[in-house]
């Protein structure tokens, strides 16, 4: 559905996108993941025709965005980083405007009502957008992208600024959309893509570092590998015991948290869940474990893990 080939974009001397290529298949939900400033927004802006790349091409449904911009744009619903809202309109007026702007041919009343009820903005339809909260504004922005039922929907950081309940709602909405749309979703939040996407494209410093099925990434990013433990016991002895434990790759004490407990950071060997063995070992020593928290993996870890994995995968093939 979407083909991005060899895109390069520079702002002055700074290369924002360095020859990136990836494809998105029909009906896929693809997470576009990367730290701030990695080039996510630039890629999306090029894909939607807002910016032009220096080299390379972006095609939507086989139509090049530069050659036939109007045809390509008709196929895309886009929610930019900041929802493009006219504050002096009511939600209904705004969606009406979008409906006309996109030359929709669906039944207007029915289509817009449907969108409003799916997104949960039916009750604010007659309110001025300027009076809406951030969460509602974001939803109106999402509604805008759905008008005209375009086959491709592109969301640039759709959950930024929402409260946890709204985030969950929006994520489940995106999953629903994925059933009959092709969706690209950019974010810098790792669990978000894991929750929603079929495939994950990771971009860093303008280069694609990974393009994998979500399950594969999940293995790399085993959330229980890094634990923070709060233990009541003598610091040095606990440290020594943890170091000698089988399956522990790395231990570090972060110092006493209060009178009788100390916090330790523990990283287990890949593929091992050390939570139960740790509990048992500490219990046997009579050192109460009063807190255990899994630290998850951050984006940096994922990059490192992916690059490591690629290198180790490349070595044996090189030997052949």
């Amino acid at each position, binding site marked *: 559905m979407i083909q991005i080939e060899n895109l390069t974009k520079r*702002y002055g001397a700074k290369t924002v996108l360095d020859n990136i290529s990836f494809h998105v298949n029909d009906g896929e939900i693809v997470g576009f993941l990367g730290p701030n400033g990695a080039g996510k927004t630039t890629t999306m802006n090029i894909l*939607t*025709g*807002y910016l032009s790349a220096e080299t390379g091409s972006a095609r939507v449904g086989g139509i090049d965005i530069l050659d036939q911009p109007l045809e390509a*744009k008709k196929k895309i619903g886009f929610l*930019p980083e900041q929802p*493009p809202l*006219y*504050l002096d309109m009511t939600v209904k007026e705004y969606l009406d405007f*979008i409906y006309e702007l996109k030359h929709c041919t669906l039944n207007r009343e029915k289509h817009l009502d449907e969108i409003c009820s799916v997104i949960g903005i039916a009750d604010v339809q007659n309110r001025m957008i300027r009076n809406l909260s951030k969460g509602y504004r974001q939803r109106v922005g999402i509604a805008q992208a759905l008008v005209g039922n375009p086959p491709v929907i592109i969301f640039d950081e759709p959950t930024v600024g929402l409260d946890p309940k709204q985030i969950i709602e929006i994520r489940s909405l995106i999953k629903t959309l994925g059933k009959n749309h092709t969706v690209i979703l950019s974010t810098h939040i790792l669990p978000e893509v894991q929750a929603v996407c079929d495939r994950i494209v990771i971009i860093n410093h303008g280069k694609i570092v990974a393009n994998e099925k979500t399950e594969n990434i999940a293995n790399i990013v085993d959330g229980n590998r890094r634990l923070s433990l709060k233990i009541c016991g003598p610091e040095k002895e606990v440290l020594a015991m943890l170091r000698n434990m089988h399956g522990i790759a790395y231990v570090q004490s972060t110092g006493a948290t209060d009178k009788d407990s100390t916090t330790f950071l523990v990283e287990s060997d890949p593929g091992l869940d050390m939570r139960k063995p740790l509990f048992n070992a500490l219990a046997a020593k009579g050192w109460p474990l009063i807190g255990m928290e899994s630290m998850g993996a951050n984006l940096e870890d994922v990059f490192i893990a992916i690059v490591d994995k690629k290198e180790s995968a490349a070595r044996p093939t090189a030997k052949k």
Partner: protein
Amino acid sequence: MLAIYKRELRSYFTTPLGYIFMAIFLCLAGVLFSTATLQARADSDVNYYFTYLLMSFVIVLPLLTMKLFSEERKLRTEQLLLTSPVTLTGMVLAKFFAAYTVFALTYGASCFSFIALYLYGTPNTAQLIGNSVGILLLGGACIAIGIFVSALTENQLIAAIGSMAILFAFVMVGFLSDYINSALLRTVIGWISILSRYNGFGNGVFEFNSILYYISIAVVFLFATVRVFERRRWA
């Protein structure tokens, strides 16, 4: 394109801007009309009125155009328009015609004052029509200039002051020629000056050159606006 036109036109009247523009325009036109015709002379000559009126465009018309693109850019709604199935030309023209509609309607409303001329004097109808056509053409040119400046900045105030400055230069350059000896330079100034082109209309004469001049100013600046957006896409 029609959707943008409708939205833009509507927004003039859902925000105070449209009303402020109409109030200032009509107020100025009324004062100028009464001082330049009714109170000044008995012969119903309206040319002074129209000359003052078109000079007031320097201040008044930027009010109408200042927000057209600068606000879109500030609110990031520009991104919506540029990623919608609308051509850049369509987008620019829609905005132009929305502003032009408000301007033309307001000018139309100000024409009610001509009734006083017919009641108490013997105005030259050809002169009134000629001036009106001239004003409407010149207004279009000024609005196009304002739109161009508005596309350059995201600050409405800068857009307003910038277009005032350009319009002021266009109007004032005509007065310069009185102080210049070089015949060549005076001819060039004659080409550029908005005022010197206007005289024919004041006499009720439609000169093809002048009509073309105002239309081409509008076209050139609207085209430049389209180029601004095209260029920004590659920046």
